[in-house]
Each structure stands twice: as structure tokens, then as C-alpha cells.
């Protein structure tokens, strides 16, 4: 390892990056955009679902129930309907996502303890379905409690849809730390994957191969500048998350950065491995998405890890993002220290070592 040559590669990469305005914009733009988008989108309690109510009972009790439902703000009447058929038609046309049917025998059903109200749901959106299911569990008796005397077994429960929307009861507080990982996974793998393939495409690689540069100098020199970029992105997401969403950092900030460095290195080395295999930038991009999608879906960022089948869990254990999510949530939300989370630290270190070794071994200083 010759430090001067290594440094020459680092300086070259930084100079090239500085001139690549679009990439530079993406480095900052992607985290900001995703944070704001996901942060606000996912922070939203599910409100304002377009709805229509067909109150066929028209009693004081049914009107009170409908008013209570609307008062939650979860549904918002956008169309008028008088029969269940009309509601189904509206649903089919996509004008509403929720329809509420109060049957003519509402009062009798209520007294009999039968289902008094039917909620029709556009089941094509599972999230809406979840929210509507919650709505359907609204205690019917509660809305008429004022008119009744005596104990009410179900009592008044404030309607909350939040926990239903988020399978893991997450909010921005939980999303932001994960978002650091998602953004790093997307940008780091792609940047390095493309960085080396681009040199091959442009013919620079033949020049570099004919110089005394060693494989590890070339690989590490290319990766280091991107590690710095990864830390910049971490800082952007962290700062914005604290500012916009009051995301706490209950553990030490140093641990947050150490965990990020671990993920950055794991992803960079994966990108390097991809670059030794990909023949064109397009291929490198495809391979990146091949890794990125499972990362997002299986790591526990979107769906609860515990609910996955065992085999899928094994698969998820291979993904760096899975381990990073455990680390970062532990540090930021539960105030844990990295030493307590050592299995995931170890997993990332092992992943990085294996990928780096594989990339260096696969990379030939030859053209054939």
C-alpha cells in the first residue's frame, strides 16, 4: 500500500465529483427529499379518507353515530348516497375509499347486540383497509351513551388509526433513523458500483491498469471519498430529522456515526463487488436495485421483521440494512450503546470484510 498513490486516487475522485454537479446535487437532494417526503407522509395520521354515508335509519341515534364518525376526521364525506348499492358503485369508480351503511333497522340491531353498522372498504389499499377496520370497531354504544343510563361496557374510546397505519406502530421518530440506512444503502452502493464501471466504459481503466497502482490502492482510494459523502448524508438526515420531526438521539451521537460508518463501508464494498461484475453502468444500476429492493422490504424498515417467515428472516440477516436498523434504532430511540448491540456490529464488520476481499480478488489487473 503506497499512501501517495492512494491519496492521488482520492484527490482525483474528489475533483471529478466536484465537477459533477448533478451527482453533487443528488448527494444532498436525495436525503432531504426522502426525509421530507417519508417523514411527513408517514407521520400523517390517516385522515380524510374519502367516504360516503348511507344512513337508512335516520334516527337520532344513527345521526349521532355518523356525526361521531365524521368528527374523528378519519373519513370525510365527499359524495351522497342513500343505498348500499350506490355506495358500492362509488367505491368501484374509486370516488370513495370508505362507505358507511346504517341499515333501517339500526336501532333494533343495536339493542339486539347484532352488527348495527356496515363499513364498506376499498380493500385494494391494505392501509386504508386497516384504517377502516379500526373505524368499524368504533363502539356504537358510545355515541348514544349520553341518552342511556347505566354502565356502558365498551365505554368511550378515542379513535386512533395511527397504530393501524403503521404495522410496527412507527412514526417519524421511528422512520428517520431507518431512513438514514435506506438512503445510505441506495446512494453508496450505486455510487461505487457506477464509479468503477464508468472508468471502464470511458477507457480510463486501461490507463490505470498499466500503471503501478495496486488493486487495493485503486479500490480503497475510490471508496474513501464516498465514505465522506455518506457521513455528510447521515448528518443531513440526522439534523433535519431533529429539526423537523424532533427525533430524539437518546444514545451517543458518536455511536450514531460509528453505526453509519459501518453501514457505509458495508455498502461501498458491496458496490465495489458489483462493479467488478457489471459490464456497463446500466448493469451496475440494475444490480444495485436488485439489492436495494429486498433491503427496503425485508430489513424491517417497512414491515415488521418478526412477522416474516423464517427463511426470509435468514435472507434479511444477510442484508446490511437489517443490522443497521437494529443498531440505529437501538442507539437513537432506546439509548443503547454499540457494545450492547455487538452482534449486529459484528455482522456488518464481517459483511464488509467478505465483500472487500471478494472485490479485490475478483478485480484483475488485466484486461482478459
Amino acid at each position, binding site marked *: 500500500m503506497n499512501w501517495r498513490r492512494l491519496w492521488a486516487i482520492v484527490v*482525483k475522485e474528489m*475533483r471529478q465529483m466536484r465537477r459533477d454537479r448533478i451527482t453533487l446535487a443528488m448527494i444532498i437532494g436525495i436525503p432531504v427529499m426522502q426525509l421530507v417526503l417519508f417523514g411527513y407522509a408517514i407521520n400523517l395520521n390517516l385522515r380524510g379518507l374519502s367516504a360516503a354515508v348511507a344512513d337508512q335509519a335516520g334516527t337520532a341515534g344513527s345521526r349521532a353515530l355518523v356525526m361521531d364518525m365524521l368528527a374523528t376526521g378519519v373519513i370525510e364525506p365527499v359524495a351522497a348516497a342513500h343505498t348500499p348499492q350506490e355506495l358500492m358503485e362509488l367505491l368501484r369508480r374509486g370516488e370513495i375509499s370508505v362507505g358507511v351503511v346504517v341499515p333501517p333497522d339500526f336501532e333494533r340491531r343495536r339493542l339486539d347486540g347484532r352488527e348495527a353498522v356496515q363499513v364498506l372498504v376499498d380493500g385494494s389499499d391494505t392501509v386504508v383497509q386497516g384504517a377502516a377496520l379500526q373505524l368499524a370497531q368504533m363502539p356504537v354504544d358510545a355515541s348514544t351513551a349520553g341518552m342511556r343510563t347505566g354502565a356502558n361496557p365498551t365505554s368511550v374510546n378515542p379513535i386512533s388509526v395511527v397504530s393501524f397505519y403503521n404495522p410496527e406502530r412507527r412514526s417519524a421518530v421511528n422512520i428517520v433513523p431507518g431512513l438514514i440506512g435506506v438512503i445510505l444503502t441506495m446512494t453508496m452502493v450505486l455510487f461505487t458500483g457506477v464509479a468503477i464501471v464508468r472508468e471502464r466504459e470511458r477507457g480510463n481503466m*486501461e490507463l490505470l491498469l498499466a500503471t503501478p497502482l495496486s488493486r487495493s490502492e485503486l479500490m480503497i482510494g475510490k471508496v474513501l471519498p464516498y465514505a465522506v459523502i455518506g457521513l455528510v448524508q447521515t448528518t443531513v438526515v440526522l439534523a433535519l430529522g431533529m429539526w423537523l420531526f424532533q427525533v430524539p438521539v437518546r444514545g451517543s451521537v458518536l455511536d450514531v456515526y460509528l453505526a453509519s460508518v459501518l453501514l457505509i463501508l458495508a455498502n461501498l464494498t458491496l458496490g465495489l463487488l458489483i462493479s467488478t461484475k457489471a459490464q456497463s453502468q446500466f448493469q451496475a444500476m440494475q444490480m444495485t436495485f436488485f439489492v436495494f429492493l429486498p433491503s427496503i422490504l425485508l430489513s424491517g424498515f417497512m414491515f415488521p421483521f418478526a412477522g416474516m417467515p423464517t427463511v426470509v428472516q435468514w435472507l434479511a440477516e444477510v442484508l446490511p440494512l437489517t443490522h443497521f436498523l437494529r443498531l440505529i434504532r437501538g442507539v437513537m430511540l432506546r439509548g443503547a450503546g454499540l457494545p450492547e448491540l455487538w452482534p449486529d456490529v459484528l455482522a456488518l464488520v464481517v459483511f464488509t470484510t467478505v465483500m472487500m476481499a471478494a472485490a479485490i480478488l475478483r478485480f484483475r489487473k488485466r484486461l*482478459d
Partner: protein
Amino acid sequence: MTKRFGDLVAVDDVDLTVPQACVYGFLGPNGSGKSTTIRMLCGLLTPSAGRIEVLGLRIPEQAEALRRRIGYMTQKFSLFADLSVRENLEFLAAVQGVPKARTGQRVDALVAQYHFQGREGQLAGTLSGGQKQRLALAGAVVHEPELLFLDEPTSAVDPESRRDFWEKLFELADAGTTILVSTHYMDEAERCHRLAILDHGALVADGTPAELTGALQGRTLEVTAAHPRQARRALVELPGVLSVAQIGNTLRVLAARDGDVVRRTRDALAAANLQARVEAVPPSLEDVFVAATQGRDEDPARDRAA
């Protein structure tokens, strides 16, 4: 040395010896194996068979040690388009191990020698074709290599830039650098101290330009005829004639071997009732090239190997 890519024999048992401090040319059409040969000599490709020794080092085993002592200019411009002239040279100096203290001085000298004053900050990608080639050459010699490989350095450059470029090559050779340069331009080949002609991956002739053309003495004729196309038809079929090429209003005839070619040509033209003047002319490298590659073209197996 031999290089096969699958069934394709790109370089077929080429045997070369290049003397020091000379400009050694590789002449051959596209696909004749020039680039592959150069890449094998640099250690970028592993030969399928044969033995290579460059500057006393066995290749590819000692390719790493060799890389410090050679410069390589690729066929395609391979410097960084998004770095400036100076940044490119500084990068190569660092990578090639020019001592840090000397780097600034060396880059300044190259900028002056290769006429980049005032353009040091310009991005390499925005240079003209000729300037790019000059920069690539400056980059290839930044560490003052003993041996320089140039792969068709002037294939996309205007004639004046080519002349300038060759001036630089001779300066380098005078300073003791051995230069191996590939080209498909005859005029460039004529400038080389020594020359190897490659065709379909095989070495078909080598020697100094004078030796090569000297061997053809008496076999080249110029035919000036009123109807060159008809004269050409009359001569193409003549036994012993390797090629007849029309150049303006004259025909250049290359005969297979010595003998009274002039008389036989005249007879043939007379038999065809064509008025023509026939005279022997000094052979050129193009004739050498045609003579060397002619017979082989009729072998279809080799044709495909190109």
C-alpha cells in the same frame, strides 16, 4: 507469442525483437493484432502461448515491476476528461511514483514541452483531438519511462498534429527512450527506424524501411495509360502480378518476383491493344505491405481469423 480469444487467433506466433532507443513501428490494418500485441507486451493481456521478455523482465509474471518502467498510451483517449490538463499530469505523476518534490517541476516542464501553457486549467475533455493526443503522450512519459508503447496514437488527428506528434517521438528516442508505435499510416511507418508488418495476427515482414523496400527492387512498375481501367483489367489476370492499384491516371503494378516484369507487362498491354507507358519505379512501403499480405488474403481460413 500467441493470443487466442476463444476460437479467434488474434496474435499468431509473433516473434519480435526491438532494439533500444529506436522508434519501432507496428504496421497493419485494423484487426491485424497490433493492439493485442501491445497489450500483451504491457502485461495487460496474458499470452495464450509463448514467452515474452520486456526490459529483461518476464511477462506476465513480472508485469508489476515492468509497469514502473514503461509508458503506455492507449488507442482511445484514456485520460480523465473531467480533470484539467494539470490535474491529469499531477495524478499520473503521483501514481507513477515521481517523487513529490519533483512533481511540480516535472509537470511544469511537460506543460512547456507539450505546448499547454495557458491551458493548464482547461478540462481534458474540451481539448481538440490533436491536443488530447499530445496530453496523452505527456501523461505517458511523466515518469520518464525507458520504453513507451503507443497504440495508434495519431489515428484521429489532423496531418499537422501528426507531424508535431512525431517530432516529439523522435525527441524522446534521441533522449534514449525506446518507442513501440502502432499505426496504419504508411507515411508514419516510413518514419520508423524499424518496422514490423502484422497481418491477421501474424508477423509477415520486419526490418528497416529501407531493407523492406529494397527487397522489392525491380518489382514495382508504373503504367501510364490512356484508359487506365481497361489496362488494369488486362494486367490483373497476368500471371506473376500481385496487385494492380489505380492511382489517379496511373496504375501501380506489383509483381510477384523478379524477372523481366517490364517487358511482360508491355507485351500484355500490347496484346490487349492498349497504348501505355511502362516504367520501373522505386518501391514504397505500401508495396511492401501489399506484397507481404497479398498471398495470405487468398487463404479464407485466415481471413476469418482477422
